[in-house]
């Protein structure tokens, strides 16, 4: 065995860096409609191939095709389009607001709106979501008041989080949206725990979680899959593979060696890989996995294949580490544009209506912002009462915190 060649350390590198021309010809995009739709009680092992393919419904002409076509009423499609467009309008506005120095931080979900909005519409209203920080579309699609979202970002006196969290770290029990953590991955096993609790109680609600492809490297990803399989938890676990984790490409998370959907296989769970920019495909997969979960058949891992069109957050400048035209070269397009074209192709939408809606939503966001700013901004001093910073550490304030509150003069 001796006298072998020397070993060497391999460090994965993305195909393109700033200055290079973006090129995704290595990304295999199967034709829409080409992946089989199994019954929900299929054995996981029998659909191992699904983890390597890609479920797609909208074809190049924006027609809905194939067995995964969820055949939705145009009403639902309109809802979805509106929620995705509102999410984008809101993101754009808040991004600029941060650039104007009015809020401290922001994270857009541009290009990934279908990953949350299609789920929100496919799930029951009281199914519980355990999002990461890029699923604001869930709140918007479920009709959470935009003004409350914005007040959270402004940390003003109406911020439901009382100024305790960075912008975008929403929480709403009423809207089935679990409090966002700054720590990556922690929500994944929590969702499984919530689902186990639901099963334990004989409830019929399921849990759904989202994690970035980068964060799948955390131990909590493994714990979630493992507990989910052992206790057959009614949960849907989504990996949002948007190709990037701040500056590191998905190969640093292991994405060059296998798909993230295929991680399911070793746990005996179904792993489905989906065109994440195809509203109908995401909807159909959410429906399938929810039905499976509700039928007591356990968890599904879903890889939502998409692209992070903008910077990681307002603290990030992606032109430092990737070609600036990657988003344009992205082969799966823009989820809003694709759904719009589909609606037009079935005669349920028009360019004029689209323009009018864009206009309407932009105005809505602007007006909401005006209202929010009339309540106040952190910079003006509008925020929760200072003494509230000592509350909610515990249910009741213990002596040492009331002493500290006193010392603080709050």
């Amino acid at each position, binding site marked *: 065995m001796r006298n072998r060649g020397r070993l060497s350390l391999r460090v994965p590198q993305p195909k393109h860096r700033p200055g290079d021309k973006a090129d995704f010809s290595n990304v295999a995009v199967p034709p829409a409609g080409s992946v089989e739709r199994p019954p929900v009680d299929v054995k996981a092992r029998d659909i191992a191939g699904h983890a390597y393919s890609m479920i797609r419904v909208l074809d190049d002409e924006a027609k809905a095709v194939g067995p995964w076509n969820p055949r939705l009423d145009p009403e639902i499609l309109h809802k979805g389009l509106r929620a995705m467009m509102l999410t984008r309008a809101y993101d754009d506005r808040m991004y600029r607001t941060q650039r104007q120095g009015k809020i401290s931080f922001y994270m857009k979900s541009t290009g990934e709106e279908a990953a949350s909005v299609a789920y929100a519409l496919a799930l029951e209203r009281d199914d519980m979501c355990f999002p990461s920080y890029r699923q604001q579309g869930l709140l918007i699609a479920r009709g959470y008041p935009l003004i409350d979202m914005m007040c959270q970002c402004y940390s003003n006196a109406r911020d439901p989080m009382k100024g305790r969290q960075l912008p975008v770290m929403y*929480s709403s029990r009423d809207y089935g949206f679990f409090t966002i953590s700054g720590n990556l991955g922690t929500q994944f096993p*929590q969702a499984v*725990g919530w689902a186990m609790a639901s099963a*334990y109680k004989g409830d019929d609600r399921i849990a759904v979680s989202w994690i970035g492809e980068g964060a799948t490297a955390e131990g909590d990803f*493994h*714990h979630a899959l*493992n507990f989910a399989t052992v206790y057959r938890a009614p949960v849907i676990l989504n990996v949002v593979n948007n190709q990037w984790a701040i500056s590191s490409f998905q190969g640093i998370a292991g994405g060059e060696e296998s798909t993230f959907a295929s991680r399911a296989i070793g746990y005996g769970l179904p792993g489905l890989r989906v065109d994440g920019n195809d509203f109908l495909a995401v909807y159909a997969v959410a429906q399938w996995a929810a039905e499976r979960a509700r039928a007591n058949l356990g968890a599904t891992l879903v890889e939502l294949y998409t692209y992070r069109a903008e910077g990681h957050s307002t603290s990030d400048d992606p032109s430092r580490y990737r070609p600036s035209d990657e988003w344009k070269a992205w082969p799966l397009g823009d989820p809003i544009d694709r759904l719009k074209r589909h609606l037009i192709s079935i005669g349920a939408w028009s360019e004029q209506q689209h323009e009018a809606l864009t206009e309407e939503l932009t105005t809505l966001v602007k007006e909401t912002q005006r209202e929010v700013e009339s309540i106040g901004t952190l910079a003006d001093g509008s925020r929760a009462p200072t003494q509230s910073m000592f509350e*909610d*550490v515990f249910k009741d304030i*213990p002596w040492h915190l009331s002493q500290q509150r006193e010392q603080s003069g709050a």
Partner: protein
Amino acid sequence: MPAMNMIQALNSALDVMLGRDPNVLIFGEDVGYFGGVFRVTDGLQRKHGVTRCFDSPIGEAGIVGIAVGMGAYGLRPVVEIQFADYIYPAYDQIVSEAARIRYRSAGDFHVPLTIRTPYGGGIYGGQTHSQSPEALFTHVAGIKTVIPSNPIDAKGLLMSAIEDDDPVIFLEPKRLYNGPFDGHHEKPVQPWAKHPLSDVPEGYYTVPLGEAAVARPGRDLTVLTYGTMVHVAVAAAEEAGVDADVIDLRTLVPVDIKAIVKSVEKTGRCVVAHEATLTSGYGAELCALVQEHCFYHLEAPVQRIAGWDTPYPHAFEWEYFPGPKRVAQAMRRAMEK
């Protein structure tokens, strides 16, 4: 009332709570069919059913992460970490999640979670079956830390912890499971049955969190301690011939500052004792509190007695363990000056 040892008392607490509240459930490594490596959950699966007390995969982070989600749903999970030495994989879920969910969501969610785990030395367990990590939790805002020292308290505190709406770390002094232990390892083991605090009510009652108890009243010197060291301190007082006021803190956060101040103002002298490593141990906080609140009453420096700043070495169990001799020495030092 039946005499119970600490294992039986804890088992009874869990049994009572499973009976009272369908939202209480128990899981952890080996806690189901087998009843736990220390038998604390013995018989609970058989009595209450497999979904109320069950085995979990060996992943402490997973156990706590799952429990956090269950807590958010509205259950009151009680999880066991097999040894406190194995709690570190779960540290992120405890510190970043369980402890902060109420705060970060402004009360929208909270996690009524109890984490039980045996801690401490005295059983020749070596470096990974002997640790006392309480100070790693007392530093974290949003967690309560509880340590009983006898069967009556163990049951009452555990029921309080389970009913508490905040996450509680419940550290069980494993050397006390089967009998009180004053550090005299050379003496035969005493069963709890001979000890008055083993006279445990069978049904429901609580011992409130945040209240200390006086384990031995005295006038000369205050000892602030908890867990196994309560018994060691009482023995040391006799051996040193010091009329020590031994305070069993029972809850470390929120600590019973009134009981501390009352005692130190009375005695003017203080010894702080724990098994955990000295540096940055909870004893440091106690020292700081005492000198902040009682500086002008103090006649001598507060003496800290603790585990040495080394891992727990298997063959040097009794050199490491801060036994009655070391505590008595500290008492004498505190009295001399």
